[in-house]
């Protein structure tokens, strides 16, 4: 009966998940510098995709179910993208407020 409960997809997906889990853990001890976060998230994304596709069986789901998840994911990606872009592209505030000139004529200040 165990094969009824655990068909090949479930066994293989479970095995893949544990393998990636171990990989993630091992890599956390390797100094990857700034690549550490993207790598960790990337592995997480693969694991999530496996759970969604094979445990939640979205591959066999209807188009509506797939579009539902796709819409949520796409909008979330846009939210995160533009929030991070905001922080990453903000210019530092001016040291001297515009309009004042700390002893120099205003015309000498760089214009935007």
């Amino acid at each position, binding site marked *: 009966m165990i094969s009824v409960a655990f068909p090949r997809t479930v066994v293989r997906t479970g095995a893949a998940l544990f393998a990636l889990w171990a990989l993630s853990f091992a890599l956390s001890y390797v100094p990857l510098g700034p690549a550490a976060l993207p790598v960790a998230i990337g592995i997480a994304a693969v694991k999530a995709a496996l759970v969604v596709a094979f445990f939640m069986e979205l591959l066999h789901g209807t188009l*509506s179910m797939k579009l539902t998840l796709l*819409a*949520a994911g796409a*909008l979330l990606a*846009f*939210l995160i993208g*533009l*929030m991070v*872009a*905001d*922080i*990453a*592209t*903000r*210019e530092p505030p001016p040291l001297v407020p515009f309009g004042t000139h700390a002893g120099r004529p205003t015309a000498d200040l760089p214009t935007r």
Partner: protein
Amino acid sequence: MTTMPLEPSSAMPGSRAASPTYLGVDTTIRSWLLTTDHKRIGVLYLVSMLFALALGGFFAMAVRLEHLSPNTTVMSAMAYNRFFTLHGVIMVWLFLIPSIPSSFGNFLLPIMVGAKDVAFPRLNLLSWYLYMAGSAVVLVSMFVGGIDTGWTFYTPYSTYSPTAIPLALFGVFIIGFSTILTGLNFIVTTHTMRAKGLGWLRMPLFVWSIYATSIIQVLATPVLGMVLIFVVLDNGFSWGFFDASRGGDPVLYQHLFWFYSHPAVYIMVLPGMGVVSEVVTSFSRKNPFSYKAIAYSSIGIAFVGFLTWGHHMFVSGMSRFDAGAFGVLSMLVAVFSAIKVFNWTWTLKKGAIALKTPLLYIFAFLFLFVFGGMTGVAVAAMSLDVHWHDTYFVVAHFHFIMVGGTLTAFVAGLHYWFPKITGKMYSERWGVLSAALVFTGFFATFFPQFLLGNAGMPRRYYTYPPEFQALHLVSTVGSWVLALGMMITLVYLLHAIWWGPPAGPSPWGSRSFEWRTSSPPPQHNFTRTPSFELDPYDYSRPMPEEGE
């Protein structure tokens, strides 16, 4: 779909025993409070939200009264801050967001797709109770200090405001669940419960607008929920999570708040557009100029509306890169609304126009929505918004859309579907009079505010320079006319419920599916299920017989 009659007593033609309507089947209070009938739930929502509209209107009138004179008129500055905040919170979450979807959407969507009810009727009832519970919490918060942050709860002030922030925001949070449940129900109903033979491209356009609205409700509201959790805990425990002096970034709050609140305005306006599509086709006795354009543009608005939120943040300290991106995307979303307006106008052209009250409100909608929409495109231009942000110009813009658009469409829908919901007809003469008062009052209230804002009058300010008084005076008097029109409407509609002449199944001659059953409908929507293979806008054929 089975055509087996549901009430055996009315299966025989000419049978004397009429199947009970959804109103008459059981008249106890318990049957209403425990109902799972989508029509009754729609009525429960309708009655509750009219109270919310009245309360929000009261706060609006008080704010306008205060502005009769440049300095203190009738209230203190602290009271003023609370009044405009509560006006916003109540109007947005207790009225506008649920307005058309939870009342007319609930009542009509299953009928329009040929279903006996929504997919999850008990969740539907739960959504009303959540709406009532959340509203009650917000009302309680009014009496324990209210809130004074503006309806946008900007940080860091909302963290430190000594008012009832945690309570009020918790109330809004609960209402958010109501919104999500409603949207979820409508999406699943539309996808899985359409009658046999009813394809997506033959549903009434109102269904498309409610469906698109439901997508927004389901995807945007959770983000509001999360950010409200943060603000409530921030205020309650003084976290300073968004306080720059403690390492926080207040602009992040605004990103999350507006990620919800911009799509929220499309939650508010899309259902109104659905009403416009129905009334325009019925009262010009024509099919829409392009069904697909209206249907697809609804979905377009739903998705592109999510991409534009930063245009509320042009002066917040957001980066120029983001500002540029949001500016361009905001221009894009206007295209879909324009497509609809052109479609409606072309539908009316050479139609057999019946100048009845619902259509009068729709004419008002078309005029006011275009005004509001074009000023929306104007404030989406960052270079202009820098001057207009936080002035009465923006206030006028969004009131033209929310009141001139959504409320007008809501009242149009109220008149259009009044006979279907109650089985009675109202007085057309009083309808026309009220429409004239509402339109005139609205325009007098809000048009001067464009001029005020452009001249520099800031919003949410308790006092103003004396040179602005004349325009404020016009605006306040306008609000009295608007309120009078709305109150007269309430009176003659209530009168008609009891003493109006009975309306038949289709007093307007509309071909849409809800008119193919009796007014009011029987409990299970249809006595004999009609064929859903007929077109809801086909005026070239004669009106189908009941059950045809």
